[in-house]
C-alpha cells in the first residue's frame, strides 16, 4: 500500500503543480491577490507530496520490494542497506524523482523565504517553478514511472551496478542536483521579471542568494563526482572532459558568471538585461545537461537506460522551456531600462571582463561537447573531442581570467585605481614569483609552464587574502585595531576571499597533479619492489576475501621510505556475485596533500599481477579548493544583507544606521 500511496502522491503532485502554475498566473493577470497567494500553499503541498512519493520508493528499495519493477531492476537484497537506499537514485526513474523532489523543495523554499517579495513577483516565480515541476512530473509519470508493479513478484533483484555501490552515489547526485535545480529559481525569477516587465536592483538582491546557493552546491557536487570517479574507476584520472562532466561544468561556468553579474546589478543597477539572460542561460544549460545525460544521446555510466521516448520528451521540455524563455526575453528585453554607467577600470569593469571570459569559456565547452554529436547526426562520422581541445582552448581562456581575479575585489565601484590595486597586490605577486622560482629550480627539466601556473595559483591565494587584510587596514593601522576592523567587515568579503583562495588551491592541485605525477605500469610478482614518489612499494601477494555481496582478491603492498616502514596499501579486484561484474578498488594512501594510487590489473597464471601505480603530488588540493569555494559560498550566504527572509524583521536597523551616519 505504501508503494501505491507514493504513486498516488506523485499523481497528486502533478495536479498540484498544474494548479500552482495556473492559479497564481491568473491572479497576476487579473490582479487578484487571493489567487496570487494560492501559490505559496501549493508549493508546500507539492513538496510534501513529492517527498511522500520519494519516501515510498525509498521504503520499497530498503525493504527489497521486488514487486516494484524499478526496485527489481536496480536492487538486490544482499546489498548493504545504505546502498539499497542510495540506489533509489542510482537509476533513471529514481534519479528523475530526486530531480523533481529537489525542484519542489526549492519551490517550497521560495514560498517560505519569499514573504518579503512583492506579491506579483512571488506569484509569478512560483508559477514558473510549478510549470517546470509539472513538465517533469509528467515526464516521470509518462515515460519513467518508478512505481510500476510486477505481479507475481520476482524473488531477487537484478542488482545495482557495482560501480554505483559506493558512498559516492549517496553524496554526489543529491549535491549536484541541488546545484542544477537550484538555478531553476534564478530562471523563474528571470522569467517572472520578464512577464511582469519590471526589473531593478532589488530583483538582483533577491536572485543572488539563490544563485549563490545553487552555485555552492554545484561546485561541491562536481568536485565530489570528480573525486568519486578518481577513486572508483581505477584510472587515476579525476577529470576526463567527458560530455557528462561537461554537462555539469557548463552550468557551473555560466552560474559563476551569473553570480558576478548579479553583484553588479544589485550594486549599480547595470548589466540588467545581461543578468536576466545569464539566469535563463544557466538553467538552460542545466536542462541541456539533463537532456544529454538522460536521453541516452551519450552513453556512459550515467545513462542508466536508454529509451527514445524519454529523449524526445526531454527534448520537448528543453525546446519549450528554453525557447519560450528566450522568446520572452527577445520580446521584453527592449522595454527594460538600462542602468548606471561606469568606467572600464572599476569593479564593474573587472566583473564584466569576468563575464566575458566565463561565457566564452562556456561556449567553448558547449561547442566541444555538442560538435561531435551534431557531426554524428549529420554525417554519421564518429569523432571524439578530447582533452587536447579543451586544455588548449579552455585552459588558454582561463589563464588571463585567473590573473585578473585578485584585482577585481581591490578595485572600487564606478571608477577604480588600477595602479593602487597593483600596488596593494605587489607583495602577493612577489611572493608568488618567489614560490614559482623555487619550484622551477626544484623541478628543473620538468614541464616548463607548470612553475608559472603554480605561481599564478599562489598569487590567487595570497591576493584573495590581501583584500580583507587591506580593508581591515593591516600594516597601516595598529594590529589590534585592524583585527577589530577585520571582524567588522561584511561576511560577503570573506566569502569572496574564501572562494578566490579556493580557486587558487584548486589550480595548484591541478597543475601539480598533472605536471608532476609519475605513472608506472608493471607486472609484479610477490616480493617484488618498485619506486614511486620517493616511496618503495613491495608487493606481498594476493589474498582472497569476501564482502556482503562480492568476493575479492586483495593485493597487499607495504610501503617504505628511506628504509623506514611507511604503512601499507590494499588494492583489490572485486567480482560482484549478482551481476558477475568485476570492478577494481584502487588502493589510495594519502601523505599530506599527495596520494599514492595503486590499481590492480589482470593477474597472470604464475601469481604475477599487472599493477598500475601513480604518485599524485598535491592532488587533494583539487577538491580541497572546491570545498573552500563551497565554504565561501556558504559564508557569503550567511551575510546578513543576503539572508533570504531578512528585511521583514531587520528593516529598522539599517535605517537607523543611516540616520546616525548622517
Amino acid at each position: 500500500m505504501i508503494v501505491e500511496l507514493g504513486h498516488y502522491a506523485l499523481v497528486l503532485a502533478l495536479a498540484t503543480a498544474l494548479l500552482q502554475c495556473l492559479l497564481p498566473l491568473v491572479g497576476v493577470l487579473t490582479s487578484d491577490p487571493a489567487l496570487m497567494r494560492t501559490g505559496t500553499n501549493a508549493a508546500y503541498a507539492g513538496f510534501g507530496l513529492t517527498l511522500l512519493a520519494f519516501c515510498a520508493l525509498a521504503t520499497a528499495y530498503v525493504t527489497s520490494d521486488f514487486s516494484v519493477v524499478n526496485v527489481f531492476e536496480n536492487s538486490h537484497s544482499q546489498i548493504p542497506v545504505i546502498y539499497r537506499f542510495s540506489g533509489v537514485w542510482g537509476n533513471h526513474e529514481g534519479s528523475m524523482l530526486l530531480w523533481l523532489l529537489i525542484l519542489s523543495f526549492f519551490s517550497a523554499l521560495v514560498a517560505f523565504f519569499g514573504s518579503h517579495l512583492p506579491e506579483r513577483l512571488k506569484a509569478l516565480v512560483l508559477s514558473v517553478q510549478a510549470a517546470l515541476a509539472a513538465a517533469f512530473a509528467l515526464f516521470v509519470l509518462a515515460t519513467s514511472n518508478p512505481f510500476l508493479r510486477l505481479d507475481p513478484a520476482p524473488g531477487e533483484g537484478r542488482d545495482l551496478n557495482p560501480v554505483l555501490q559506493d558512498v559516492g552515489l549517496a553524496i554526489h547526485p543529491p549535491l549536484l542536483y541541488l546545484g542544477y535545480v537550484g538555478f531553476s529559481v534564478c530562471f523563474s525569477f528571470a522569467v517572472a521579471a520578464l512577464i511582469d516587465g519590471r526589473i531593478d536592483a532589488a530583483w538582483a538582491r533577491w536572485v543572488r542568494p539563490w544563485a549563490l546557493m545553487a552555485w555552492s552546491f554545484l561546485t561541491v557536487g562536481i568536485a565530489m563526482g570528480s573525486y568519486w570517479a578518481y577513486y572508483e574507476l581505477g584510472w587515476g584520472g579525476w577529470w576526463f572532459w567527458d560530455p557528462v562532466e561537461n554537462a555539469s561544468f557548463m552550468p557551473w561556468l555560466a552560474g559563476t558568471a551569473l553570480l558576478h553579474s548579479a553583484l553588479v546589478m544589485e550594486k549599480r543597477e547595470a548589466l540588467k538585461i545581461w543578468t536576466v539572460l545569464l539566469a535563463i542561460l544557466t538553467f538552460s544549460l542545466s536542462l541541456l545537461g539533463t537532456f544529454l545525460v538522460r536521453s541516452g544521446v551519450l552513453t556512459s555510466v550515467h545513462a542508466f537506460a536508454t529509451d527514445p521516448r524519454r529523449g524526445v520528451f526531454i527534448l520537448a521540455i528543453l525546446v519549450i522551456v528554453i525557447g519560450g524563455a528566450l522568446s520572452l526575453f527577445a520580446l521584453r528585453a527592449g522595454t527594460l531600462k538600462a542602468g548606471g554607467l561606469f568606467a572600464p577600470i572599476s569593479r564593474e569593469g573587472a566583473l564584466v571582463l569576468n563575464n566575458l571570459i566565463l561565457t566564452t569559456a562556456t561556449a567553448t565547452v558547449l561547442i566541444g561537447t555538442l560538435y561531435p554529436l551534431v557531426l554524428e547526426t549529420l554525417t554519421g562520422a564518429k569523432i571524439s573531442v578530447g582533452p587536447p581541445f579543451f586544455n588548449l582552448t579552455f585552459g588558454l581562456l582561463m589563464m588571463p581570467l585567473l590573473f585578473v581575479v585578485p584585482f577585481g575585489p581591490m578595485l572600487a565601484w564606478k571608477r577604480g585605481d588600477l595602479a593602487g590595486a597593483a600596488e596593494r597586490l605587489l607583495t602577493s605577486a612577489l611572493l608568488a614569483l618567489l614560490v614559482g622560482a623555487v619550484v622551477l629550480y626544484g623541478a628543473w627539466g620538468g614541464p616548463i609552464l607548470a612553475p608559472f601556473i603554480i605561481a599564478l595559483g599562489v598569487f590567487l591565494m595570497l591576493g584573495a587574502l590581501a583584500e580583507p587584510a587591506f580593508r581591515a587596514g593591516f600594516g597601516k593601522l595598529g594590529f589590534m585595531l585592524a583585527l577589530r576592523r577585520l571582524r567588522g567587515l561584511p561576511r560577503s568579503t570573506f566569502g569572496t576571499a574564501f572562494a578566490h583562495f579556493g580557486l587558487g588551491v584548486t589550480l595548484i592541485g591541478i597543475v601539480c597533479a598533472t605536471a608532476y605525477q609519475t605513472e608506472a605500469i608493471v607486472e609484479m610478482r610477490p616480493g617484488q619492489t618498485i619506486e614511486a614518489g620517493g616511496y618503495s612499494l613491495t608487493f606481498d601477494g594476493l589474498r582472497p576475501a569476501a564482502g556482503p555481496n562480492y568476493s575479492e582478491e586483495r593485493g597487499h603492498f607495504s610501503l617504505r621510505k628511506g628504509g623506514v616502514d611507511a604503512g601499507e596499501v590494499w588494492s583489490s579486484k572485486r567480482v560482484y556475485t549478482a551481476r558477475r561484474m568485476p570492478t577494481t578498488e584502487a588502493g589510495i594512501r594519502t601523505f599530506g596533500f599527495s596520494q599514492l594510487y595503486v590499481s590492480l590489473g589482470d593477474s597472470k597464471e604464475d601469481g604475477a599481477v599487472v599493477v598500475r601505480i601513480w604518485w599524485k603530488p598535491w592532488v587533494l588540493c583539487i577538491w580541497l579548493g572546491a570545498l573552500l569555494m563551497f565554504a565561501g559560498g556558504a559564508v557569503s550566504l550567511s551575510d546578513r544583507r543576503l539572508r533570504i527572509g531578512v528585511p521583514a524583521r531587520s528593516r529598522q536597523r539599517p535605517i537607523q544606521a543611516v540616520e546616525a551616519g548622517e
Partner: protein
Amino acid sequence: MLFWVLVSFLTACVAIALMLPLLRGEKGSAVAARGDVAVYRDQLAEIERDKASGLVAADEAERARAEIGRRLIAAVDAEASERRVRDTPRAGLLAQAAIVVLLPLLCLGLYISMGRPGLPDQPLAARLATPDGDIEVLIARVEAALVANPDDGAGWDVLAPVYARRGRLEDAVEAYRNALRILGDTPERLAGFAETLIAAADGQVVPAAREALQRALSLAPGDPGVRFYLALGLEQNGRADEARAAFADLAASAPANAPWLALVQSHLARLGTPTPTPQPAAPAGPSTADIAAAEDMQPADRKAMIEGMVSGLAARLKAQPADAEGWQRLMRSYMVLGRPDEARQALKDGLSHFPAKSEPGRQLLALAKTLGLVREGL
C-alpha cells in the same frame, strides 16, 4: 479500503490548502511592504559602510546616494499606486471550482489508469517468512542461505536444476559446479551439469560437457541420455562413422516404446545418407540462440522480441494444435509477460484438443496449477 481513505484524505488536504487563501479573501492580506523599498534603504546604509572602508570615493558615494535615492522615490510611488489597484473584483469562484472538481477527477483518472491499487507491498522479508507457493521466494531463500554458507552442497544441488528449468543457465552451471565440488560425482548430477552446459552453448557438446558425460558414463554405464549426448558430440565433431555406430548401439539397446527412439532414428537417418540433408527446421518458438540474443538486448527490445516469438508460437498452435508441449510453453510465456488472461485462454484451447483426462491434458492442468492459473479442484 484504508488505501482509499488515505487517498481521499490526501486529496482533501491538498484541496483545502489550495482553497484557504481563496476563502480567506482580502481579510488575511495585510499588504506587505514592498521589498524593493527595503532593499534600497539597505543599500543607502551600505554606501556609508563602503565609504567608511574606502570602497568608494566620497564624491562617488554622494552620486550613488543620489542615484539610489531616485530609485527609492520611484519605488515608494509605485507602492502607492499598487495599493490602489487592489480593489479589483475577485475571480475566485472559478478557481475554487477548478480545485474542488478538477483536482480529484484528474488525479483519480490518472492514477487508476496507471496504478495497481489492489496490489499490496511485498517486502522480501515478509515474503521469506511465508513463502507458500512462491517459487521465486523459495529460490531467494536458498540463495540467501548459500550466501551465508557457500559450502552447503545440498543447497546447490537443489538450486541447480531449478535454475536450469527457469532458463538461468549461467547460474545453473555455477550451482552444478559447486554441488559437484562439494558433494562429489553422481551420474544424475553430472548428466544435469552436462545438459546445462550444452544448453548454455546453444546445443553444442562442448569439451567440458563431454568430459562430464564420460565421467557419468563410467559411474552408470548404459544411461541412454548420456550416451545420446556423447553420440551427438561425435556427430557435431564430424566423426560421422563413430556417431552412427553410437546411435545404432543406442537404438539397438532401447526398449521398443522408448519415447526418445524417434529422435535417435532421425539422427541415424541423417547420418545414413551420403549427402547430409540440411538440419530439420527447429520447432518454432524461442531457440537457445534466440534466448542468448535476448540476454544482450535492452529491456524494451527484449520484451518486443519475446512478444514476437510468443505470438508466433500462438499462431502456429492455432494451425497445428496437436502439440502439448507447445501449449505448455505458450502458457508459461504468457505468465512471464504478465498476461494471465491469455495464459488461461491458452489452457482452454489446449484442453479443447487434449481432454483433461488424457496424459497431456493432465500435464497442462498440472502446469496451470503451478502457475496459479486455476485453483485446486477445478
